[in-house]
C-alpha cells in the first residue's frame, strides 16, 4: 500500500487540534502559528494532490481502504476523483486563507477557536474523500459541532440563535440522510456501505425504493446546499459567524450538499434522479430568482452576500438537474467558483466590518475615495459574482445554463433572468458602498491592509485565470463527469 496521503491530509488538522490542546492558553502566538502551519501544510498537500492527480483516469486515485467495523461492513475507504479534487483544493486554499484571516479577526479564546477550527477542516476534507457512507456520515456530522461553537462563541449579536438554528437544521437534514444510508445498506444484495460497491447494486432498486432513498438523502443535502425552502439557516449563520467562518461556510460547507448529490444521490439512485430532475431544476430556478430578489432587499452587506449564495447555488442545482455533461461540468465549476468568489466577498465584508463595525449598506457611501484598493477588490469580486464574462463566475453559470437549457428550456430561460437581478443587487450594493459622496463618519477608515490583501490575491488570481482559461480547472473534472453521466444516463448528452 502506498503512502496514505489522503489520511495524512484529513487527519493532519485533527492532529494539529490535539496538539493545540496541549499548548497553554496564554501562548496565543504559538497557537496561531501552529494553526497557520497546519493549514498551510494542508494547502500544500492539496496542491501536491492536484499536481499528482491523473485527470484522464476516471477511477479513484490515492485510494485507501481498511476495514473499520467488520461486523457491519464499515470500511475506512478514502479516494479522490475528478469530482472531489477541485473541492479538496478549494478546501485547502480557503482553510489556509481563513486561518490567516482568523489570526487577525479572532480576539478571544484563541485556543478553543483554533482547536475547533482545525477539527472543522478535518470534517470537511473527510467528507470530500470518504468513499464509505458510514465514514461519509461521520465526517459530515463532524463538521457540525465545531461549526456550532465557532458561530456560537465568536459570532455576532444573535450568535446563539444562529448557531442553534444551524445545528438543528443541518442535523435534521442529516438524520434523514442516515436513514437513507441504512436503506441503501439493507436493500443491497451485498450489505456494504461502500459507495463504489453500492453503485453496482443500488441502480437496480425499484423506482419506488429509489425515490424513497433519494428523498431521504435529499433532506440532508438540500439543507446544506441550501435549496429553497430549507435555506433560512443560511443567512442567519452567515451573518452571525465571524468572517473566517463565513468564508468556510459559504466556501466549503455549502459544497458538501451539492457534492453529496453528485457522489451519492445521482450515481446510486439514477432512476430516482431522473425522476426528480425536473423538480430539481425548478428548485434551482427558484433558488436563483428567489435568492436574488431577497438579496436585493437586504441592507446588511453580509446578509446580502449570504442570499447571493442561495442564488448562486441555484445554478449548481440547475446544472446538476440537467444531467448533461455540460451541466455537470458547470455545476462543479460553479461550486468551485462560488467558493472562491463568495469566500472573497465575505473576507471583504470582514474587512469593512472590522473597521466600521457596521454592515449597514445604507450607512456607507463614497468609500471608493477613501479606500481605493478595497474598492478595487470589491468591484472585481462583485463583478465576478454577478457573472461577468472573463471572470470565473461566468463560466460556471454559462455551463450550468447551457446544460440546463438542453434539458429544460423554459426553466433555464427564467433562471437566466436571474442574471439581471443579480447584476441589479450587486451594483446597487456597490453604489451604496463605494459610490456617492463620502459619509464623514468614515473619514477615518484606513484602506485594506497587507495581510488582507494577501488573503485576497490568491482568490483574485484564480478568479481571473478561470475566467479566461476555464480549462485549467475543468480538465480535472471532465473525464470524471463523462464517466458519471455515462453511469447515470447511459448515454452522453
Amino acid at each position: 500500500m502506498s503512502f496514505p496521503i489522503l489520511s495524512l491530509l484529513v487527519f493532519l488538522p485533527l492532529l494539529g487540534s490535539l496538539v493545540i490542546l496541549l499548548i497553554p492558553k496564554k501562548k496565543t502566538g504559538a497557537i496561531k502559528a501552529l494553526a497557520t502551519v497546519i493549514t498551510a501544510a494542508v494547502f500544500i498537500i492539496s496542491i501536491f494532490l492536484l499536481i499528482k492527480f491523473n485527470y484522464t483516469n476516471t477511477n479513484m486515485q490515492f485510494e485507501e481502504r481498511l476495514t473499520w467495523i467488520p461486523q457491519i461492513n464499515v470500511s475506512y475507504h478514502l479516494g479522490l476523483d475528478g469530482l472531489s479534487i477541485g473541492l479538496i483544493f478549494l478546501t485547502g486554499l480557503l482553510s489556509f486563507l481563513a486561518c490567516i484571516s482568523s489570526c487577525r479577526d479572532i480576539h478571544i479564546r484563541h485556543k478553543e477557536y483554533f482547536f475547533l477550527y482545525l477539527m472543522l477542516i478535518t470534517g470537511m476534507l473527510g467528507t470530500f474523500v470518504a468513499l464509505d457512507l458510514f465514514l461519509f456520515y461521520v465526517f459530515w456530522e463532524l463538521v457540525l459541532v465545531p461549526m456550532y461553537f465557532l458561530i456560537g462563541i465568536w459570532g455576532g449579536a444573535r450568535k446563539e440563535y444562529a448557531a442553534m438554528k444551524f445545528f438543528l437544521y443541518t442535523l435534521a437534514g442529516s438524520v434523514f440522510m442516515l436513514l437513507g444510508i441504512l436503506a441503501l445498506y439493507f436493500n443491497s444484495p451485498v450489505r456494504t456501505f461502500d459507495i463504489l460497491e453500492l453503485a453496482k447494486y443500488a441502480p437496480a432498486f425499484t423506482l419506488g425504493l429509489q425515490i424513497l432513498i433519494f428523498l431521504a438523502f435529499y433532506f440532508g443535502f438540500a439543507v446544506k446546499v441550501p435549496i429553497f425552502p430549507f435555506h433560512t439557516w443560511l443567512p442567519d449563520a452567515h451573518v452571525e459567524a465571524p468572517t473566517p467562518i463565513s468564508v468556510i461556510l459559504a466556501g466549503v460547507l455549502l459544497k458538501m450538499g451539492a457534492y453529496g448529490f453528485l457522489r451519492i444521490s445521482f450515481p446510486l439512485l439514477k432512476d430516482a434522479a431522473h425522476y426528480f430532475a425536473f423538480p430539481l431544476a425548478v428548485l434551482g430556478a427558484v433558488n436563483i430568482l428567489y435568492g436574488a430578489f431577497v438579496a436585493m432587499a437586504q441592507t446588511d452587506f453580509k446578509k446580502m452576500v449570504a442570499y447571493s449564495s442561495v442564488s448562486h447555488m441555484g445554478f449548481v442545482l440547475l446544472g446538476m438537474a440537467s444531467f448533461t455533461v455540460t451541466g455537470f461540468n458547470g455545476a462543479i465549476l460553479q461550486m468551485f467558483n462560488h467558493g472562491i468568489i463568495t469566500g472573497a466577498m465575505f473576507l471583504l465584508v470582514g474587512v469593512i466590518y472590522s473597521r466600521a463595525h457596521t454592515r449597514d449598506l445604507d450607512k456607507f457611501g463614497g468609500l471608493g475615495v477613501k479606500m481605493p484598493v478595497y474598492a478595487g477588490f470589491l468591484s472585481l469580486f462583485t463583478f465576478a459574482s454577478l457573472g461577468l464574462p472573463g471572470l470565473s463566475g461566468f463560466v460556471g453559470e454559462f455551463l450550468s445554463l447551457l446544460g440546463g437549457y438542453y434539458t429544460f428550456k423554459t426553466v433555464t430561460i427564467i433562471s437566466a433572468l436571474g442574471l439581471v437581478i443579480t447584476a441589479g443587487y450587486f451594483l446597487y450594493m456597490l453604489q451604496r458602498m463605494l459610490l456617492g459622496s463620502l459619509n464623514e463618519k468614515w473619514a477615518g477608515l484606513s484602506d485594506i491592509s497587507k495581510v488582507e490583501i494577501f488573503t485576497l490575491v490568491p482568490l483574485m488570481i484564480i478568479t481571473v485565470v478561470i475566467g479566461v482559461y476555464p480549462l485549467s480547472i475543468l480538465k480535472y473534472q471532465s473525464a470524471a463527469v463523462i464517466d458519471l453521466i455515462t453511469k447515470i444516463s447511459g448515454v452522453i448528452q
Partner: protein
Amino acid sequence: MSILADLKFILPEIILLICALAVLFLGLFVKKKSILGVLSLAGLILAGLLLPQSYISGTSIFFNILVSDSFSEFFKYLFLLTAAIVILISIGYKRILKEDRGEYYFLLLILTIAMMLAVSSHNLLMIYIAIEAVSLLAYILTAFRKNDLFSSEGALKYFLFGSLTSAVMLYGISFVYGLFGTLDLSTISASLNQAQNNFAVFVPLLFIFSGLSFKCALVPFHMWVPDAYQGAPTPVTALISVGPKAVGFAVLLRIFLCDIFISTDMWVCFVTAVSIFTMTLGNIIAITQTNVKRLLGYSSIAQAGYILIGFVVATPLGIKAVLFYLFTYLFMNLGAFACVALISESIKSHDIEDYAGFYKRQPFTAFVFTVFLLSLAGIPPLGGFMAKFLVFAAAIEARFIMLAVIGVINSVVALYYYVKIIRFMYLSEPKETPILPRPFALNFALVIAFVSILVIGLWPCPVLNWINGLQF
C-alpha cells in the same frame, strides 16, 4: 450437594456480599471514609475478575431459578462497571454524610448483587424478588440525603410509584402462575404457544410489562423519573438512571428471548406506541426544563424510547442494538451525571443558568460534559452515535420506516436541549470566575467514561464482537 456446587456460579455475587458486609462493619470504625469506597471498588474489581470463571454457557443453576449464560454475564459486567463508576463519583461527593458512608457503600453493593441476580434469573419468582430488592434499595439510596426535603420527596414518590407498579406486576405474575402452573420462563414459553394472542394471557403479561416499564421508565410509567432524579443525591441519580433501567431492559429481553412477548401484531403495535410516546414525550418536555438533573431525567426517558425500538423490531440486530445501546448509555449517562455531580459540588446549583461560563471554571469538566451530551444526542463519532445508528439500522432493516423517522426527528429535538446546556457552559460568561478544584476520584470516573465513549464511537469492534458472541 448441588446447591453448594452451584455456589461457584454466583461467586462474584458472594464476593460482593462479603465485601459489602466488610464495608458495613469497617464503616463503624474507620475514620477516613474514602477507604470504604476503595474497598468497595476492590470488591467490584475482584468480582469482575472472577466473573469469566463463574459461568459455563447456558447452565441452569439453583433448580433452574438462575441461569448462567453469556447474556447475563454481559449485564453483570455492565452492573459492575456501573457500580464502580458510581462509587468513584460518590467518593468525591460530599453531600452524603460521612457517618453514613459505610451504609451507603453497603447498600450500593447489595443493590449491585440484586441487579446481577435479576439478570440471571430464569424464573418469574426470582425475577420479582430481585427486582423488588433492586427497587427497595434504590428507594433507600434516593432518600440518602436525609435532611433534604427534595431527597425525601423524590424517594417517597419513587417508592409509591414503584410499590404500586410492583403490586400490579405481582398480580400479573400470580395470574401467570394460575395460567401455566409454573413461573419458569422456558416452561411458560413452551405452553404459551397455543394461547399467545389470548386476552387472558395478554393482560397478565401486560401487568408484568408494566412493572418492567416502571424500571425502564417507559411512558406512562415515567412520571416518577424527573422527581426522583432531581431529588436523589447525584451519584444515586446516576445509578438509578442506568442500573435499574438496564435491569428492566435485561429482564424484558430475557422474557422476550424466551418467546414470551410473542411478536404478535398487537404487541408490536403496542410496544411501538410506547416507544414513540416515550421518546417524544421525554424529548419534548425536556426542552423547557431548567434543572439539569431533571432535564437529564427526561432525556433518559427519551433514551429508553430509542432502546425500545430494538425490541419492537425484534430481530437479532435489534437485540444487539439494545445491548450495544445499553452499554454505551452506561458510560454517557454516568459520565453526564458525574459531571453534574462535579458541577453541583462546585457551584451548589443544578440550575442551567448557573452553568453559565463553566468552561472557564473547569475547562476539562465542561469539555467532557459536552462530549457526553453530544454522545447522548447521537453525534458521531461518539459512542452514542454508534448506538443510535444500530438501533435505527435495526428499524430500517425490519422496515419500521415510520418508527425510524420518528426516532430521528426525536433525536433532532433532543439535540436542542442537550445543546442548551452546552450553550450555557460555553457561550455565556460566568458571573464569577474562580477556577474550581476537582476531586480525584470523580476525575477518574470522568476519564473512564470519556475514553470509553470515544473508543466505542471510533472502534466499536470489540464491543460488537462481544455482543455478537453472546448466546441467548
